[in-house]
């Protein structure tokens, strides 16, 4: 039974507090995640010194490298060190002595271009297909979309990639099979983006179409949607004005969840197409047990995913809030 904040200043403070609390919780979650990453790399056999060693290095050399990289210090100390640099934007130094921020400066924007394009295309396609299916419940179009989306989601990215490569590149020769990196660290032409984006979009559209279709079906059985049909409103209007607004919270949550899967898929797809993104960086960093670099990648991906989830929560809150 709290008395309402009457003054403008108190209301503003209240609002800031309400936005800050979830952001704080997510930041804490990210710290826990990074700690888990540090521990996991430590538990893997081998370390950065051994994996970057040249053939024939003596044990003394190895120990010296280990000391140079700080691997002889306890794990928590290295973690605290790395976290300490974080507020200043310093993501540490990789096992090869380069700044992690410099290593990520080119690949991160490339991956963002890939993931954001795939994300937008996924949202548009799944809304379109989901609405199309929901407007024809039980009819052939609905069933075809239902089965096709299940099949698409069941396909792993590498199978989709191989299929796309075979059809669109090797047989028809329309698109380049491999991404060639230009002098500025970006793919040489935009056509090189098409195959990786499609390989990500197809499985994710399968998943999200099912989410959209299901959320719309739930709304279809609500009394106000049935009343709208009895009022003689055309089906497309009932769908867009009465069914879809109620389905938005469920759709936003489903779509936000798939950003995590998109990033995961990007690692596989980038490797397959030789796309210059953080996926390639991450794969080689894990092979080299390069903890600061892995943590840097996780940090960036985690921050992006957290932001998307926060946005989804805000959308959900705003649309649910309309009901009270």
């Amino acid at each position: 039974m709290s008395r309402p904040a009457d003054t403008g200043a108190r209301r503003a403070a209240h609002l800031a507090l309400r936005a800050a609390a979830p952001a704080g919780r997510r930041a804490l979650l990210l710290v826990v995640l990074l700690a888990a990453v540090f521990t996991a790399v430590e538990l893997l056999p081998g370390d950065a010194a051994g994996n970057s060693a040249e053939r024939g290095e003596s044990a003394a050399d190895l120990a010296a490298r280990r000391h140079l990289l700080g691997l002889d210090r306890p794990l928590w100390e290295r973690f605290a060190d790395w976290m300490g640099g974080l507020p200043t934007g310093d993501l540490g130094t990789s096992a090869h002595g380069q700044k992690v921020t410099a290593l990520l400066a080119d690949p991160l924007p490339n991956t963002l271009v890939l993931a954001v394009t795939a994300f937008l295309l996924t949202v548009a396609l799944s809304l379109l297909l989901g609405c199309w299916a929901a407007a024809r419940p039980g009819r052939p179009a609905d069933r075809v979309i239902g089965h096709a989306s299940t099949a698409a989601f069941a396909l792993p990215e590498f199978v989709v990639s191989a299929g796309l490569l075979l059809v669109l590149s090797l047989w028809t020769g329309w698109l380049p099979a491999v991404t060639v990196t230009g002098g500025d660290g970006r793919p040489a032409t935009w056509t090189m983006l098409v195959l990786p984006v499609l390989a990500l979009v197809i499985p994710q559209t399968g998943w999200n179409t099912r989410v959209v279709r299901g959320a719309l079906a739930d709304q279809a059985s609500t009394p106000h949607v049935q009343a709208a049909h009895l009022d003689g409103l055309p089906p497309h209007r009932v769908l867009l004005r009465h069914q879809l607004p109620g389905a938005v919270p469920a759709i936003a949550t489903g779509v936000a969840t798939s950003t995590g899967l998109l990033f995961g898929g990007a690692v596989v797809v980038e490797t397959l197409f030789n796309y210059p993104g953080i996926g390639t960086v991450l794969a080689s960093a894990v092979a080299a047990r390069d903890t600061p670099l892995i943590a840097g990648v996780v940090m960036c991906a985690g921050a992006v995913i957290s932001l998307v989830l926060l946005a989804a929560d805000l959308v959900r809150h705003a649309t649910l809030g309309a009901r009270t």
Partner: protein
Amino acid sequence: MSDRAPARTGTAGTSEAPVAAVSDLLIRLPEGPVLLPATTARIHAGRITALTGASGSGKTTLLRALVGDLPPGAAATGTIEVLGRTPHLLPAGELRRLRRTAVAYVGQDPGSALNPRMTARRLVAELATDPSRGQTLRLLAECSLPADSGIADRRPTALSGGQQRRVALARALARDPEILLLDEPTAGLDATARDDIARLLRHLATGRNLAVVIATHDPHLVETCADHTIDLTRTRTRADRGVPTPRAASDRPTPAYTRPTKVDVRPGTVDTSGPPAGDGLAALGIDAFFQGRHRRRHPALSGVAFHAAPGSATAITGPSGSGKTTLLRVLAGLHPAHTGHLTLDGRPLAAHVRRRTREQQRRIQLVPQNPMAALNPRHTVAQQLTRPLRLHTDLPRSARADRIAELLDQVGLPAGHASRRPGELSGGQRQRVSIARALAAGPDILLCDEVTSALDTDTAADIMDLLTHLRAEHRTALVVVSHDHHLAARHTDTVHILGSGHITNTGPTASLLTS
């Protein structure tokens, strides 16, 4: 089916061809219950036709058949003709045009039939032949929702039950229909609002030469405004549906279903066997708000004090929109946006129902106004009743089925209805399931929000008798929101009269309401 001679001659000549006619229309599920017994009726422009009959007699089925909406799987025999066409046989596009331009249907639960995400103005404008702001506001004003009340910019969840009903009516009128079908248009309205509606319907029928069909339990409405009555109970046979045979209103001492002579509400295993100690539920200085658009707050209650002692019966009345439902929701812990103090037996009671203990939750039970929204549409009646039994009693699993049958019997439903879902019940039957669910918890304080407004007079009287019996036997405190002054006077001792969020008068029901 009787098609009684018009009580009053409408302005349109009776010799004119009817705008809608059904003859020997029978609607049933294959191998299943009859939903509408063979009915013959003629509906004329400019006249008001009333469909009467007990709850579950097929009034809603007939209204929906007139807009071409038969229950899934149901088959119709006989003929039905609306503006020269048979609605349920029309191709989808033509049926849509008929609904969109000529025949408007308003269900009995307008609260859940209005899109919760649209404002009243947009809801009306969506169907209007002229969606301009001025015309929309005029339509709302015609349905006694004046433009200066700010109601046009509220969403349905920020409106009272009566206001929602009038928004739904404005939405129906917006398309300028030829036939207006209204299911229980006065349920949940106070006497003044009811007279307003009756006057409005008369005005529409004559002014717009509109054919109005109302399904109603309200004898007053039938008397004041119907030109013409069709009674659906006349030829009912009991075997048809297994529902209680409706009785004639004049002699009601022979209920067709057996009411138990001794009403045992709580299973013997519930711990509070004696009368509850303490001084019941009290509320002090309650201010409550609800949120409109742009986080604007509308006051719903201000400075309300309330007390319900064990075994007492309190009525809350007042005009539509005066905060009656909000007060019940505050007491039930469902409207936490308020200031003030709640106590139960002298101990503080949390504002939010989730912060209350399981025992406190059990002791205060609410039967809401709108049973369709309160019952889970995917659960059978038995499942709805099992949850409170599982949560609030230590009845063994094996004894639950018997207890459910007993509860259904108490509210006058056959035990066979336990396997039905809310969609397969009539509005009145759903309301009784909702009451049975509240009783299953064995409450000490029962909050009833217009629980009898969707029931016919006899069932309503039976339900009120049952509640009065509980009060005598178990010292259950009753808090009844009702517009029915007679009912309130008969069954309650104290009345609080609310007017725009304030308690304007309190006193013994007998002297305040009968005068």
